[in-house]
């Protein structure tokens, strides 16, 4: 019997227990004549939880422990005495025997494995039966214990609610666990990377070419400055040149000028821009925008070395993607400026545009700056557009028609080849990930701080 069907069985028993306990609790009440403390449903939950939780916990532990126990008992079998002493060979044969025993393999490569199959099957059957019996025993004994406590004066509700509280707490701890997991996995691999490559070389080196270092770890190939520059050029400069004016002016028009009807149509339309998957933007950039920009650069401006994977193509498309972020942050900030300031300016005879330019925008500036910082952090963490439209060559150039590469492109590039997990290349990807994580985190903290202080100023 598989673990899955056993789980289903335990849950099935728990449901039966819920109904019986509920019925019993409901029937008890009139006999004793006094008011029961808890509703019958709570007694049902109490018994069902007692039945299911210990049994499922045991089942989880058992399913982790059982393969090891089975293996130990097979090794004690006479047929295993002939196995080679070397750990690697032995575990290869054991793995094969296990696959043969559960039927996922039909023919063995090592002949020793065939001999172990009967022992394997017997051991796994034996321990499987033990696991089933123990699970069911645990379920029934705990369920019976709880069932015997179903009495009118038993405070089942309080017990069940305490379990609910624990479940809520555990669920909310998962967020902390995820954060710890991210920081720990990034830090762990990054430290291993810096044991091989000096941290100064990584942060201040200007030559990036890890693909060339197949065997030796040439520290000169892990200088990440070109990546940082490429990320800033695409995400913080070109994308923002597109996104800030368009986003800000859209917000101004939609909040200050547009009739309500236009606003109610155009605002969702602009928000669609944020909902389009980035892979679609990437495809659009690579297929339509990049060739157009290259042709423009070669034919109109006369840049002969314009790349078809130019920084400009990726940056412009990323800027379009960012427009709604800037626009909605600017929208919120403008709305937060007290109406009295606007009215005062208008009453003094200023036109609408003068009020916006001289009063509203300066007053809302901290909020807008915070929004732009959030947008920058979004842009430098964006992956698919740059993977598909920006290049792989780590150039240190300010020419937007040339190809540059970014941190995210290199992370994808380093981790999607077929290399072992311990090479400097894969570890370098984690180091880049840590840098990205820290930078986006700092940008977010600063941005939220700025926005918060700005809000408080007007409240």
């Amino acid at each position, binding site marked *: 019997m598989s673990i899955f069907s056993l789980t289903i069985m335990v849950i099935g028993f728990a449901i039966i227990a819920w109904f019986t306990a509920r019925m019993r609790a409901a029937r008890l009440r009139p006999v004793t004549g006094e008011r029961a403390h808890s509703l019958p449903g709570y007694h049902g939950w109490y018994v069902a939880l007692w039945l299911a939780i210990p049994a499922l916990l045991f089942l989880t532990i058992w399913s982790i422990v059982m393969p090891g126990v089975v293996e130990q008992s097979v090794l004690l079998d006479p047929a295993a005495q002939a196995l080679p002493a070397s750990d690697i060979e032995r575990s290869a044969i054991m793995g094969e025997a296990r696959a043969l025993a559960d039927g996922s393999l039909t023919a063995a490569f090592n002949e020793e494995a065939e001999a172990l199959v009967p022992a394997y099957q017997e051991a796994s059957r034996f321990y499987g039966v033990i696991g089933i019996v123990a699970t069911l025993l645990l379920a029934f004994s705990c369920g019976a214990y709880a069932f015997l406590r179903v009495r009118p004066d038993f405070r089942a*509700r309080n017990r069940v*609610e305490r379990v609910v509280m624990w479940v*809520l707490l555990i*669920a*909310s701890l*998962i*967020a*902390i666990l*995820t*954060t710890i*997991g*991210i920081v720990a*996995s*990034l830090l762990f*691999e990054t430290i291993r990377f810096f044991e091989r490559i000096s941290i100064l070389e990584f942060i201040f080196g200007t030559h990036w070419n890890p693909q060339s270092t197949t065997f030796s770890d040439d520290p000169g190939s892990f200088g990440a400055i070109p990546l940082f520059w490429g990320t800033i050029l695409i995400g913080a400069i070109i994308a923002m040149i597109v996104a800030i*004016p368009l986003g*800000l*002016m*859209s917000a101004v*028009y*939609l909040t*200050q*000028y547009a009739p309500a009807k236009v606003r109610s149509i*155009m605002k969702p*339309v*602009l928000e*669609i*821009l944020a*909902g*389009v*998957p*980035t*892979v*679609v933007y*990437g*495809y659009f950039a690579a*297929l339509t925008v990049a060739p157009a920009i290259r042709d423009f650069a070669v034919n109109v401006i006369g840049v002969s070395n314009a790349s078809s994977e130019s920084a400009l193509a990726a940056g412009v498309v990323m800027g*379009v993607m960012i427009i709604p972020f800037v*626009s909605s942050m600017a929208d919120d900030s403008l709305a937060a400026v007290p109406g009295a300031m606007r009215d005062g300016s208008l009453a003094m005879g200023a*036109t*609408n*545009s*003068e009020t*916006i330019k001289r009063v509203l925008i300066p007053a809302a500036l901290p909020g807008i700056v915070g929004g732009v910082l959030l947008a920058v952090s979004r842009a430098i*963490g964006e*992956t*698919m557009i740059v*993977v*598909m439209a920006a290049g792989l060559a780590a150039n240190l150039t300010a020419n937007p028609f040339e190809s540059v590469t970014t941190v995210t492109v290199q*992370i*994808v590039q380093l*981790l*999607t080849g077929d290399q072992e997990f311990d090479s400097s290349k894969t570890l370098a*990807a984690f180091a880049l*990930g840590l840098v*990205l*994580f820290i930078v*986006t985190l700092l940008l*977010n903290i600063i941005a*939220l701080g700025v926005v918060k202080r700005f809000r408080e100023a007007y409240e």
Partner: protein
Amino acid sequence: MNTAIASSTARQPTDWNAGPMQRRIRARYRAEKRFRFYGLFAVLLSAGFLAFLLVTMVSSGARGFTQTQIALPVNFAGSDIFLEPSQLEGEDRDQLLAQADFQGLAQQSAIAAYGEEGLDLLSNGAWVLLRDAISADPTLLTRNETLWVPASTEVDFAARGDSGAGQSEERDAMIVRYAELDAADQVRRTLSWNFLTLADSSDPTLVGIWGALKGSLLTMTITLLLAFPIGVLTAVYLEEYAPENRWTDIIEVSINNLAAVPSIIFGLLGLAVFINVFYLPRSAAIVGGLTLALMTMPVIVIAGRNAIKSVPPSIRDAALGIGASPVQVLTHHVLPLSLPGILTGTIIGMSRALGETAPLLLIGMRAFVATPPSGFTDPATVLPVQIFLWSDELDPGFVEKTSAAIIVLLLFLLAMNGIAIWLRNKYEQRW
């Protein structure tokens, strides 16, 4: 102070009708109009980008749903395939079908029908359709039958007509040849379900998105099953029960941070933890689902908290006042009232997860998967990753297929967001 008042009273009143003043006012009004126009221009430009993007995708993707087919008369009875219809009723039919040389049969039939160049007219995978036809109807083996099979990419290009002309001699020759075939009714262009029912392939005439779509569905199932309960429970805890202490602060800070972490970082987490520590299978839907669940959970928590917060305290107080316990207040009142908001947030989070590519690339879901996954641990790919993989293909036949896959993805996202908006409008309550 006094001097200021004195000087202002001494000043002449402004003559609004004087020439310079009128000019100044006109200039200011012009600036006003210009500014207004800039705003309108920005809105229209942004919307124009969106329209251009969608029009590009739809116009190049519409062809992806069609297929150029060529008539292939097949003489099954006189072929090298020595199978009897009765043999295919037994249990070993799959093995028999796998052994038979359908590829040779397809090539022979093509040469018989169209001469030596017939091989170039047929899609490389056309024989698969012969096999499927026989599998569906074994009696074909005794007959001559004309089947419609996919034509090669070259024929497909020629079917576009003049737009491809003049690029190379072979292409021009093929356009002429296509016109002949068309006149003889030996080719046709039809809407084909193949694109929706097949999986990935190296031949653009035979690719489909069912494999990727199924992978997406499996991945999203895992994501939903994990992210929704955890997200809702966390939101409930933080909003209703959390004491004000350092633990609660840490939880809140980490959720807000997780919502802002770039998605690719979650891919690194999935790779380092799920694959390298827990040894879950690479490329499998379960790892993708787990990774995306961690990414979606903060979105659901934030939406859930806002929805729970919008339930007025008077409802809680009233319930508590008539003797409900805190958990009863939650399950009987707060959760049902905030459910529409929570569901809206969940759908929006799920639609973001459905379009997500980068973290899935890192955990290996970019494998070539030619058969749709049948379980959570099978190698799988998802729609956006499939789009990414096809966009990398050199064969020009993949361009329209990529755009067609994008159309399917966008339709799914549109449907999900439409449901979210509908839910919000239907059930949103103002207290």
